[in-house]
């Protein structure tokens, strides 16, 4: 619902509007880029941040949850870390500033800041819809990022790690990535924070996966306990293209990760696996929409959530099957382990089907650990605490093990185990 009358701005809304005024001179781009930014900020100003009255934000009332926004901090300093997998190609965005170095042959990379300066990026700075708060915030403030092109028939031998390190303040980045026909790559989008200072990070990735490409994209979000993270990944799948998307959330205070995709080529396949490790007072929302727009496409999404403490988790998943997109096969599952009485989890798995010759289904469960499983382990002399840990670990590791790269699996499992050790 659009709010027509002027709203009373919250602290966070005021901070965003003020930040825009103070940052305007520093934000790259003018002309068309500037008017696109103005339009997005204006929409934010007149409509405010979304509330639960906006259906897609029903469980994440951003207006109420985003209490404050840290100011831009031009003095903030941070250093990159080693890549997750040895020998990876690493591209870093540190406190919102991208640097291009060590790019192997065969990948074309350009700083997004340059595209903003020369104006070619102006066309990107649009909102997906009137509920696209992430698009608005990111578009108004975007400073840098990477434009990446993997040419057709190129296979990346090593993973490409896009490392976004934040120490304080705000950063807003974009990652437009084109995977040429029949290319093959593993990309790790990794978000880290180096300290406890609060920050606001927004990131919008636009993926074009051309015909026959086979791509694995991993989002690993490990920001700090006082950080706000607003992520959005959009993708378009060509014919015979395959995209495996892993979303792992193991950090942040207020996290919204949106995934929006369409299949525009026949016989394409989309796989999504999600692990949300939620503890403390965090609020984490994974919102997913997928449009099966052409016949003969398949998709499977499996989301596993583990909640401790006072954490709040949200999963919204919508599968749309367009009229005439016959032979679509789409499945979605969302399984949640709710391990604390103070935590809560809300799920809204949605199907919107306009074609008849399809197979679509979704399942959602919310449970505690199975007492018989626990008993089985305890009967074998494993203390309860450890037994619980093993079961929780097994619940999420299953997802990670679907990756192909052994080293990557091992590193992710270590991260998960460390998180669980700290929170369980």
């Amino acid at each position, binding site marked *: 619902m659009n709010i027509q009358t002027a709203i009373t701005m919250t602290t966070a809304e005021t901070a965003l509007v003020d930040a825009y005024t103070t940052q305007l001179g520093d934000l790259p781009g003018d002309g068309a880029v500037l008017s696109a930014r103005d339009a997005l900020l204006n929409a934010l100003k007149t409509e405010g941040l979304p509330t639960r009255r906006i259906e897609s934000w029903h469980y994440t009332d951003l207006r109420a949850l985003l209490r404050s926004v840290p100011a831009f901090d031009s003095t903030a300093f941070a250093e990159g870390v080693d890549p997750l997998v040895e020998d990876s190609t690493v591209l870093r965005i540190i406190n919102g500033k991208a640097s291009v170095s060590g790019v192997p042959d065969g990948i074309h990379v350009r700083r997004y800041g340059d595209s903003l300066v020369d104006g070619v990026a102006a066309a990107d700075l649009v909102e997906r819809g009137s509920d696209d708060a992430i698009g608005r915030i990111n578009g108004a403030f975007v400073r840098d990022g990477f434009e990446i092109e993997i040419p057709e028939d190129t296979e990346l031998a090593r993973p490409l790690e896009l490392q976004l390190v934040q120490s304080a303040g705000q950063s807003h980045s974009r990652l437009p990535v084109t995977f040429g026909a029949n290319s093959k790559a593993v990309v790790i989008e990794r978000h880290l924070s180096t300290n406890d200072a609060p920050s606001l990070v927004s990131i919008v990735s636009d993926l074009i996966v051309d015909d026959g490409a086979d791509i694995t994209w991993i989002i690993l979000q490990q920001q700090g306990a006082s950080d706000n993270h607003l992520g959005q990944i959009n993708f378009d799948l060509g014919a015979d293209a395959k995209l495996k998307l892993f979303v792992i959330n193991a950090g942040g205070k207020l996290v919204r990760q949106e995934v929006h995709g369409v299949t525009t080529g026949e016989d394409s396949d989309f796989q999504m696996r999600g692990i949300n490790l939620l503890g403390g007072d965090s609020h984490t929302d994974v919102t997913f929409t997928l449009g099966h727009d052409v016949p003969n496409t398949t998709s499977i999404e499996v989301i596993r959530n583990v909640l401790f403490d006072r954490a709040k988790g949200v999963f919204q998943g919508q599968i749309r099957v367009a009229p005439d997109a016959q032979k679509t096969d789409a499945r979605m599952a969302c399984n949640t382990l709710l391990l604390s009485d103070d935590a809560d*989890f809300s799920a809204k*798995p949605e199907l919107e089907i306009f074609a*008849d*010759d399809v197979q679509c289904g979704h399942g959602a469960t919310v449970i505690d650990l199975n007492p018989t499983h626990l008993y089985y382990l305890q009967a074998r002399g494993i203390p309860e605490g450890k037994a619980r840990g093993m079961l929780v670990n097994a619940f999420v590791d299953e997802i990670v093990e679907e990756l192909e790269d052994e080293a990557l699996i091992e590193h992710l499992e270590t991260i998960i185990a460390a998180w669980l050790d700290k929170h369980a």
Partner: protein
Amino acid sequence: MPAVQETIDQVALIDVDQYKYGFETKIEMDKAPKGLSEEIIRFISNKKQEPEWMLEWRLDAYRRWLTLEEPTWARVDYPKIDFNDLYYYAAPKGQTGPKSLDEVDPELLRVYEKLGIPLREQEMLAGVKTSKIAVDAVFDSVSVVTTFKEELKKAGVIFMSISEAIREYPDLVKKYLGSVVPTTDNFYATLNSAVFTDGSFVFVPKGVRCPMELSTYFRINEKGTGQFERTLIIAEEGAYVSYLEGCTAPQRDENQLHAAVVELVALDDAEIKYSTVQNWYPGDKEGKGGIYNFVTKRGDCRGNRSKISWTQVETGSAITWKYPSCILRGDDSRGEFYSIAVSNGYQQIDSGTKMIHLGKNTSSRIVSKGIAAGFSQNTYRGQVSTHRKASNARNFTQCDSLLIGGKCGAHTVPYIEAKNSTAQFEHEATTSKISEDQLFYCLQRGIPEEAAIALIVNGFVKEVIQELPMEFAVEAQKLIGISLEGSVG
């Protein structure tokens, strides 16, 4: 099966005009002027000889309603309703409460005969004794007759029209009316609170098992009227009642509005079983006419170990907006929702349920079967939630959709909200067409295709049909057949 050619052809030829209850009865009516105002509400209240508090209650609701906006979140699409272009009160003339059936307009009795509803007690008595059913018949704005009143009274059960109950049992009505669906609840419920004209009232006292099925038949007859009925059912400690409502309307070009409110209250150990066979006129094959069915139904399992079960077979109405819900307030209470929603032609259904777990050890079960054919849109929208203190809540939800033809849509929008680690929620939903394997199996055995599809559809909905009282299970099964005629036969 990529929808066999014949099926597609038949869907193209689909004819919802087969609606057999589409006749209109010429009966002299007593009507209030068109439109909605405080005067109209006073007029209705006056006609019903209501006490002052009831009028105030209505006026409060009306004033509240004026501040509300029509909800737009449902997946239904219709032109804006002009609430001032409706008659809010229409009653068969001379009906200030017949003493016996002999005083009822014979034309009216013929209507019910046509509908296949036996109102004459002697006829009922002549039938099999175990299938005795007490009927309350509501025609446009008023209840015309309630059968078996005396026999029920002997058991202590009060079954009468709500207008009568307001006059005869004001304390009971005052205590429970609006306690489940408050006047502030939502746009349509608030409107209903202001202008409701009749409906049924059931009170089953402590420890009584209602000796027969209770049933209400609603009929919209008059042109340009809206029907706003209000039903209130109370089952005291340890009581049991099974209640069924049926609805029909004449075939008209115009859209008519039906905004009912149903409130159920189950105290400790009580059980209420509420079944609906909704067959309002769905509109013609072009999507012209039909009833707008905007209904608020809610049951409150107020007592410990209470149980409320909703079963609905939705085949009619141009638009259905209906979410029979259970508030599981008492410890160990249980809510059930079984639904078959069949849409054809240009029908739009947005229906489902809410299970609100508040007490400890509560459980709920939802089984929803949607069948979409023609150009219809069929949406399941449901919510399952637990309160933070509601330990050991259990829910099982299954919603399956079947699509027949490529021009319709089936949608599932569940909201699952868990706030307690001991909650155990399971939800599954599927959407598919009729399985090729099943069809092939039947055809192999010489069953003609149409019959095979009917067989499979019946199998698809069987789980819900089984929940209906036997007499109505047969009716419901036939109704589904008729609704899908031309598409599955």
